[in-house]
């Protein structure tokens, strides 16, 4: 295993496949990003450490980490980084890459939410909030779903009263006007992105 440690291979892989991944090598390990992250205490590896792990060739640990999924895009790290690394973007890029490879942690909530959100959105061209929240409630099984729903019932009823929630959306979701066009746009975008990442072949 030591043969692959501190080699270019994983760093190269990140550079080629991760959005803004070519910045990883520029980190000087000052740690200002790690200290600036409001969610810092809640993840295993802060950005600077993640970057070092990439350089150390710890592929599985990095891509299997939940760390980059925790980024809330506050950009504190980006504005403070003395090397001007676009850290937020790298985090999202890493998450995306791990997801594409199927290496991201299965039950990572951000990942699950992001996937649901995307599926939900890309279907009709607009977000169906009712379906999205119910999907979230029930992601861990029926029993847990009921519990989650009951816990949130006051808010739900309040929204119903204020006409911010239409139960009919569950059976007959309304789509945006040009759903077809949206699908075409998304398909094109995916094609471009895949080509850029060298995945089209």
């Amino acid at each position, binding site marked *: 295993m*030591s*043969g692959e*440690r*501190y*080699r*270019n291979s994983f*760093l190269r892989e990140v550079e080629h496949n991760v959005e803004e991944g070519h910045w990883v*090598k*520029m980190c*000087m*390990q000052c740690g200002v990003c790690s200290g600036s992250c409001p969610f810092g205490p809640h993840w295993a590896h802060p950005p*600077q*450490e993640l970057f*070092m*792990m990439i*350089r*150390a060739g710890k592929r599985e640990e990095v891509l299997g980490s939940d760390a980059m999924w925790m980024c809330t895009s506050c950009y504190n790290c980006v504005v403070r980084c003395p*090397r001007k690394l676009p850290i937020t973007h790298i985090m999202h890029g890493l998450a995306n890459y791990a997801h594409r490879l199927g290496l991201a942690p299965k039950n990572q909530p951000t990942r699950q939410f992001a996937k649901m959100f995307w599926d939900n959105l890309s279907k009709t061209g607009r977000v169906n909030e009712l379906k999205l929240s119910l999907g979230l409630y029930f992601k861990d099984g029926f029993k847990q779903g009921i519990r989650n729903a009951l816990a949130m019932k006051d808010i739900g009823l309040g929204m119903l009263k204020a006409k911010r929630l239409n139960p009919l959306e569950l059976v007959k979701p309304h789509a945006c006007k040009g759903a077809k066009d949206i699908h075409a746009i998304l398909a094109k975008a995916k094609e471009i992105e895949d080509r850029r990442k060298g995945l089209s072949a």
Partner: protein
Amino acid sequence: MAETKTAAYICQGCGIGERLSTRQLAQIAQKEGKMALVREHPFLCGAEGVGLIRDDIEREAVTHVLIAACSRRAKTEAFHFPTVALARANLREGVLWSQPEADEAAGLTQEMANDYVRMGCAELKKTKLPLGNPLAATNRRILVVGGGVSGLTAALEAARAGYQVVLVEKERALGGWAAKLHKRVPFREPHADPADTGIEQLIAQVTGHPRIRVHLGATLLETRGAPGRFSVQVSVESGAAVTEEVGSIVQATGFTLYDAGKLPALGYGKTPDVVDQAGLERLARQAAAAGGAIRRPSDGAEVGSVVFVQCAGQRDEGGSHLPYCSGHCCATSIKQAMYFKDANPEVDTVVIYTDLRVPGSGEDFYRSAQRKGVTFTKGRVASVEPASGGCKVSFRDLILDEDVALEADLVVLATGQVPNSGVNIELADDDPAKAAQVPILNLAYRQGKDMPQLKHGFTDSHFICFPYETRRTGIYAAGPVRRPMDMAQAVEDATGAALKAIQAVENAAAGRAAHPRSGDLSYPIVRIEGCTQCKRCTVECPFGAIDEDESRFPVFNESRCRRCGTCMGACPVRVIGFENYSVDTVGAQIKAVDMPDEFSEKPRVLLLACENDAYPALDMAALQRRVYSAFVRVIPVRCLGSVNTIWITDALNSGYDGVMLMGCKHGEDYQCHFVKGSELANYRMGKIDDTLKQLGLETERVATYEVAITDVARVARLIDDYVAKILEIGLSPMKGFA
């Protein structure tokens, strides 16, 4: 020589006229001081006052001037009379500003002022106008020892300023380390890529310069003389000895790379695939010559992965390797990693460091390496071992906090610079370490064959503000022999050293002192017939200025002398002095003080204060109107090292109740501008106790203090505490016997 005519000028300005009777001062100057001419003036430093003095010098043929006004450190532009002997009585800072304004203090304040006028007159009468070293030597050629970047630069820069230069290089070719490099670290924007060394051009400029003579394969057999008149025997390539007459010397003898063979734990010697930075340069040059990639020594395979181990045998805490950081090695490893990356970005290059040290724009070079894909890892290397197909580097990754091992085709150890300083003259002659050392300058000096070293073998200056001040006048260290450094710094350093060498020959030619008493025209005058050949002066001179002749009499080399007076302080028979600073000029001041009798309850304390630090501190205390005892009488001295114990015994014999000496900090971080002066004074005063006992006096009657220039509040307190102490032990029983 014109007849002596003395004149005293007493200023009444800055409140002197209000708080003191200048009439009384004038009378003292006239009657006791025997001044031929005495004048009072309300504003002596004003145009009219200065004009008055100038007129007297011209029309009245005044040759000796006493200014009784402010401190000798003040109003120096106004009181500038270069053609006469000058003394200053410090009435303003020394009396007015350090004594209370209250009416009841007026009596003691006047007594103090009276004494300072008496002392000033006494000093003036013993003083002569210094005329400069009569043996001034005028050879202005400059010898540069060492033909690497530092030496070549020093030679070229001195020659470009119009001076003749002799360059001596022990190898058969010029260029030193630089000639062995593939490329150098860049020294100007954009600090992105290794640069050409430029060494060929530099060599060509030197060898083609009409004012530079080069000796290759040459060493110094003997260096004799002094600034302005060095005579150097050079053994040249043919084996013959030639004599070069020069005025000053730049020693640019460079460094040797620390022996990586002492680092078996890092794999050196166990496999040819562990090299030092010089080894990597060699490989890079071979590759460049062959037009291909860098290949590893063991099997000639192209290097696919390389690890740089920083601080190899450096920053060592265990005491077995170099304790210091060589400064350049981080940038050098960055450069060498680029050799690989620039040729083939696929090569793995890892730099393992603990602190990456690339100051200034080196940061850009660091960034450039990262951009090229060099990996930097903060870690501590435990071992490097040969492994199948390469080397295994085991280290602790300090960021990831784990022990790891990685494999590499080649490992480069960043070892440090060891200065080529010649002989450590401070080692005992029978020290085996000394026997192994080969002298470089071969100085025919009483105190040893090479320059004194400062620390870790480097020939650096101890002074932060004065980096070129070595302890051998007219000989300047430049480049890595002085301090570990890179090429860019060596060029800067060598250019500065060339200036100092030029300055040394100009000073020598004019008979002036070099730093720190630059421009001083006084020089030690010896009454050799009184000398007892005790050798103290030759041993104690901090600058090795004094040799011994065949009959063991001291030989003073004035242009090597810094005019500190340590020899004068050392001389037990008091045969050494300067025209304007001698056993007599100070002794006469000590004796001039009016000594109250033992029933007066008015002690007298003599304070000999170093003029570089303690005296300015006293001045500044006065500027802040810090009051101190009126019983003290201050005499500035050039250095505490110049204090002759006769002054102490004379003072005590003539009824002083105590003597204070204030000098600079000594020891490891000494601040004495003459290196050893305060230390020697401390040593000498340590031995004065016996004398005190013989005289039946308490040992407290002589006290030595280390005082910094910033000890402004402390100097006043020290004086008061000491006077209180004296009052406690009682006045001296010696009063009235003088």
